[in-house]
């Protein structure tokens, strides 16, 4: 494998929500195969800046797959071709020399475009605000070992709690449904003994909010599960539907 490759980027450019967007093409040479796609975009942006061209806007922060900031369509796929991998964890060695890489923002009615590849995912917070929590308050907690929880239960709850709120499941779904995101939160809380009581109530509130935010209905295409970087299973959607 070559140490350095050349890439042709075709990137969605849009100044703001109100303005119209279009694709723009850039050739980037001498891209190390050992850097990440976001680092290649940094490299491209440095070139653009020197030419007084507005750099490409994209969201990111931790760059280690945990904060959920990054994410756009890479050749049509949310987070790109690699399974269980966020955009920031995708490395250039996964692309061939002279490859064409098409980058577009998440496309969903509930995620308005801010600029280029950056979208507003505030609607996901609104779903949690509607009821994705326990009603406990600081200083009133009982002893943590009072209610035993089996390691399997704790782990299963943990697995659903690893959702990073990236929105890929919405972007990958042809109905732009947020069912996987909501199911993950309901399953995280609902599997724990502390959460059994409020299960129905939480589900009702969060699902009502899905409609308010304009997310679509789930029609069991399972695209969400396929693109989820945390591999959250779509079985939790069926679990949610039975609450």
């Amino acid at each position: 494998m070559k140490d350095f490759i050349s890439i042709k980027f075709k990137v969605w450019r849009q100044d703001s929500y109100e303005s119209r967007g279009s694709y723009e093409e850039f050739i980037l040479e001498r891209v190390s195969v050992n850097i990440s796609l976001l680092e290649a975009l940094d490299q491209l942006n440095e070139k653009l800046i020197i030419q007084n061209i507005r750099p490409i806007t994209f969201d990111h922060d931790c760059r280690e797959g945990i904060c959920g900031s990054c994410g756009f369509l890479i050749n049509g796929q949310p987070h790109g071709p690699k399974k269980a991998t966020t955009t920031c964890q995708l490395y250039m060695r996964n692309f061939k020399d002279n490859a064409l890489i098409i980058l577009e923002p998440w496309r969903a009615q509930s995620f308005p475009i801010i600029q280029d590849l950056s979208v507003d995912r505030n609607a996901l917070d609104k779903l949690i605000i509607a009821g994705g929590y326990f009603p406990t308050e600081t200083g009133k907690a009982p002893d943590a070992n009072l209610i035993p929880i089996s390691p399997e239960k704790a782990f299963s709850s943990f697995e659903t709690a690893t959702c990073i709120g990236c929105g890929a499941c919405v972007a990958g779904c042809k109905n732009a449904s947020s069912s996987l995101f909501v199911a993950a939160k309901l399953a995280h809380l609902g599997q724990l003994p502390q959460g059994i009581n409020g299960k129905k109530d939480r589900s009702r509130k969060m699902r009502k909010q899905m409609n308010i935010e304009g997310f679509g209905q789930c029609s069991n295409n399972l695209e969400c599960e396929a693109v989820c970087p945390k591999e959250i299973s779509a079985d939790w959607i069926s679990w949610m539907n039975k609450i």
Partner: protein
Amino acid sequence: MNNCINPNLPSGDVEGGWQKTIKNLTNIPSESKNKFQIIIVGCGLSGSSAAATLAEEGFKIKLITYHDSPRRAHSVSAQGGINAARSPEEERNKVVIDQLFKDTVIGGDFRAREASCQRLSEISSSIINQCVSQGVPFAREYDGTLATRRFGGAVVSRTFYARGQTGQQLLYGAYQALLRQVKLGNIELITKRDVLDLVIVNNVARGVITRNLVNGNLETHKANCVVLATGGYSNVYYLSTNSLKSNATAIWRAHKRGANFANPSFTQIHPTCIPPAGSYQSKLTLMSESLRNDGRIWLPKKINSQDDPENIPEHERDYFLERQYPKYGNLVPRDVASRRAKEICEKGFGIGFGGKGVYLDLKDSINKNGLKVIKAKYGNLLEMYERIVGEDPTKVPMKIYPAPHYTMGGLWVDYNLMSNIGGLFVLGEANYSVHGANRLGANALLQCLCDGYFISPKTITSWLANNKEIDNKKVDEACKEALNSVDKKIKVLLKIKGDKPVDYFHRTLGEIMISKCGISRNRKDLEFALEEVEKLNKNFKSNLKIPETNSGLNVELEKALRLEDFIELSKLMIKDAIEREESCGAHFREEYQTEEGEAKRNDDFFSHIAVWEFNSDNNSHIRYSEELNFKKIGLNTRNYK
């Protein structure tokens, strides 16, 4: 010692000091609390937990962050776990509390206040209760009780964890409590805003100036008091394990408005991170330290070796930690491991890009325990490594190198977590409190949550109860002045029109800082670094290029504003490192070491917190000190030989 530095410590015994303090704090009747507006900057563990708790009590909160959602805060990336002193048998509680207290003080190499470390240890157990009640899915034992593990060289098992994602799970707990208060109307979430200045009236904090990151507008926010929970500043080094946007701007602006800065040079460098792979490297990823339990660290005996590690025979390998520390071997403390790796790489034995890397080899452990055991133990980590480096660490030795990870230094706060500016509270990694010269593994998350859930809500309430009067006219004037000064700063940067992007300057700053004010330091290099930073500063101010944009969204401007503050802060870090003529904790001054090359502390002259005041009249700094007294635990030195 300067008598204006009063830490407000409880009198008498270290034990029970916090309980005594609480008794003397003033409360406010619940129904009047909603008359007070509190601004909290930062939604990491410390900011989110404080916001949720203060809102539950009835205060009106504005939570400000540059993220689009509080769930993204840097705290989300903490991996290993959170310490807590709890024992199933009540009689043993005091023993485990004492142990955590002792390890915190000794870990910090006697450069933190005993009383604060004691409080941290006493509160720790209630943090776990709190988190579990929120639904944090900690790992469990077969009997259903909470599981713990040993972490960061501790002899006792007291670290609670949720796989390798403890920070994420704790943050989501606080985030959910926070959003519940948003629903109840007690918290206003103000996202996508950079706080760029503080509004201070008669030495009391009354508001902040923000820049809206989407439309570029400058805004003022007024309040009865301000809380900064803005995290650490490891990104002064450009490459660090921190999230890319973590920055020092809020605390640095506060400092320039009069808040004192404590021990700015105390930074922790983590020995096991994935080294840079090329010149566009943007961050360094932490690999859990636990790998040192099963990995042997080595380098080729041949200088500048380009051979594949699998082909280097045993007798041509130098297991340098095992050689230098026969007793502890690969498990020497973080700072020792980092220093030794740096030294030997600088002699030309390092491997990988730029010769900045050492091997961590799992082979012997795999041969002994079997691949299955190692995979079960480190599964996630090994996958992450393979994704980033493109090599299977069970077949090819891993490459690792130390990277800046955590800043113990921060704004000076008293026992009540208030800075020397009235009503300016500082929480979490942004303050200087319990970690001294070196932080104990898994104590950062604990400190953040102690600060946010249990300490600051009480001390803030009491301060508000005693400081009700606001001079609105003066506040308005101060807001105007601060807004104008931010506006001016931005215009100056946009006017430069040079030819180099922000990152060019940031990378250069990082190189200066890591080579001269990083893992080990000496006066000559530090003085030279000061000159280099000065040159860089001039270069930045004349050659920076921020491209023109049609909308207010301007990422390059955001970065330039942060870098400007990092450059100023780096100078203070260097000065602080020069003045501290001793080696302690993570601060290793080459001039002060024993014959065996171990750190030599100087308790006669430096058993204090260095407190730096900014003098705006002549743009200079004055160093004061707060003496530290050790009543419960005797000063002693560590020995790892």
